[in-house]
């Protein structure tokens, strides 16, 4: 009780307005602070550890290209449709400015990067979503790039792997955004019927229309530890049902317990595990049989 009073007054005393800079990413400096345990550590060491906190094991968000580097074999990545850009189909006020701002901030044209590459020699088509671009939300470009990636995997007869990170549908594109759920799922169904292998790795956060479409449709649904995964937001659910939700609600571990995930895989084991799964799906490897 007393403690509570203390922290409250403290907060009031030192209330500061976040600057534009701190609102975004922590600037790439020598040191980085873990957003979970608040421990400060060398950025280089943290990056070596694939942005898994050296102190508490928290999985910090990865940028799309960082992810590609951590998963794909060196110099195997070839990007697809990198120049595709978002229009403003509904003439939504301020949308263009927001996109332009995110392009500048992230050095990416949209919230997903797609391409081909190899994982320990296994050829794949891969898509990585990046939550630093419009919270990884899905508009027409994200839907189209993912669909094209699926079609490419189908044409090449190679597995399709996606790392999801998204707040859900892109509000500024309205129902066009909603329909991307159907578009990507339709492409995935055709790919699956043709025998295609599809693996999803849900990372923090995977919610809304993305979790309710391609993110959940893997032959294998994996997730990173602690990732928030769910359809409706925690606050909306609490308001609707009028009760408080458990601490671990909508975490990867919660979903595993409730039958939604095949496995939760720590980031540092991910490449090897993925490569093993891919290896077990290679055809013609069982000649001695």
């Amino acid at each position, binding site marked *: 009780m007393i403690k509570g009073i203390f922290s409250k007054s403290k907060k009031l005393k030192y209330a500061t307005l976040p600057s534009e800079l701190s609102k975004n990413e922590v600037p790439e400096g020598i040191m980085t602070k873990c957003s979970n345990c608040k421990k400060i550590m060398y950025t280089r060491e943290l990056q070596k550890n694939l942005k898994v906190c050296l102190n508490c094991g928290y999985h910090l968000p990865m940028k799309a290209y960082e992810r590609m580097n951590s998963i794909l074999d060196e110099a195997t990545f070839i990007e697809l449709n990198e120049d595709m850009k978002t229009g403003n189909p509904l003439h939504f006020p301020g949308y263009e400015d927001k996109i332009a701002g995110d392009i500048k901030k992230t050095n990416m044209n949209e919230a997903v990067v797609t391409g081909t590459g190899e994982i320990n020699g296994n050829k794949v088509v891969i898509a990585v979503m990046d939550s630093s671009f419009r919270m990884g939300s899905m508009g027409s470009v994200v839907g189209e790039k993912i669909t094209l990636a699926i079609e490419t995997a189908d044409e090449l007869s190679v597995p399709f792997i996606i790392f999801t990170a998204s707040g859900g549908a892109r509000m500024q594109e309205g129902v066009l955004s909603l329909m991307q759920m159907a578009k990507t799922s339709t492409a995935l169904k055709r790919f*699956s019927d043709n*025998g295609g*292998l599809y693996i999803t790795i849900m990372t923090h956060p995977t919610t809304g229309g993305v979790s309710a479409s391609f993110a959940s449709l893997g*032959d*294998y*649904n994996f997730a990173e530890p602690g990732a928030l995964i769910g359809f409706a937001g925690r606050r909306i659910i609490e308001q609707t049902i009028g009760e408080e939700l458990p601490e671990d609600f909508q975490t990867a571990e919660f979903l*595993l*317990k*409730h*039958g*939604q*995930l*095949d*496995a939760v895989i720590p980031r540092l084991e991910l490449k090897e*595990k993925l490569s*093993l*799964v891919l290896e*077990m*799906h290679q*055809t013609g*490897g*069982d000649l*001695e*049989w």
Partner: protein
Amino acid sequence: MVGLDFDKPINDLKDKIKELKDFSENANVDLSTEIEKLELRLKKLENDIYDNMKPWDRVQIARHPNRPTTLDYISHLFTDFIELHGDRGFGDDEAIVGGIAKYKGLPVTIVGHQRGKDTKENIRRNFGMPHPEGYRKALRLMKQADKFNRPIICFIDTKGAYPGKAAEERGQSEAIAKNLFEMASMQVPIVCIVIGEGGSGGALALGVGNHIHMLENSTYSVITPEGAASILWKDAAQAKQAAEKMKITAPDLKGLGIIDSIIREVKGGAHHDIKEQAVQIDEVLYASLKELKGMTKEELVNHRYDKFKNIGAYKNS
């Protein structure tokens, strides 16, 4: 190690021999002739007891707390096992485990009932008695195997599907029935091995295979001996008698033409030597898969159809 009633004389004699050995070492007295005699007697006793096991004795072995489980055999027979969880609907039932692994280099899907090794694990795994979500997980993994053309290996080891309120609410019957139905059309080889108790529909839900093998001391029946005794004679205490009458042992099922082969067990039961037991299973599993791998998809489905079509006894008057 937990001893059983019927092989108590063996364990007693083993203890006595050990005692004598220890004594002779410590007191520096030569007792080698006595020890030799006793060891000869032990061998004879083992042969007498283990070669004349009654069905009830086998039930005891099949239920032995140290009897190797699905995960034990997975670690001895396969490499690179990746466990996969969940039915994508309700939950992850730990009374059934499943995943993908390599068997002598060949990618396979494995599913099996999983008992616990101690009380804590048994509570987590519900003593190896699955709920509907367990069977739905198994089916999900088998369909995945079918899609990617991987053989399926099922380990059967359960007293039965869990008889509970929640299980009924979520459709225990439908879940079991669906597995029988869907396993029928799988276009990949399915090999089932009964490693412990094969209890009723809960066992059969992983049992519609091209080949079915049983460990020598495992059982497979429509109901537990206790259950049968209580239904037939209103007295669960007559389980021993029911075990005799119901024909539940591996030799019985072989005689009835239901199983393909009996896998020889380590003397006194698989729990005496897991590694050696795995070798015995390996031989049969390899031969089984080798044979089935030679069949086309259509042949596999027809083979399974014929197998079950031919089970049953009736008279035409």
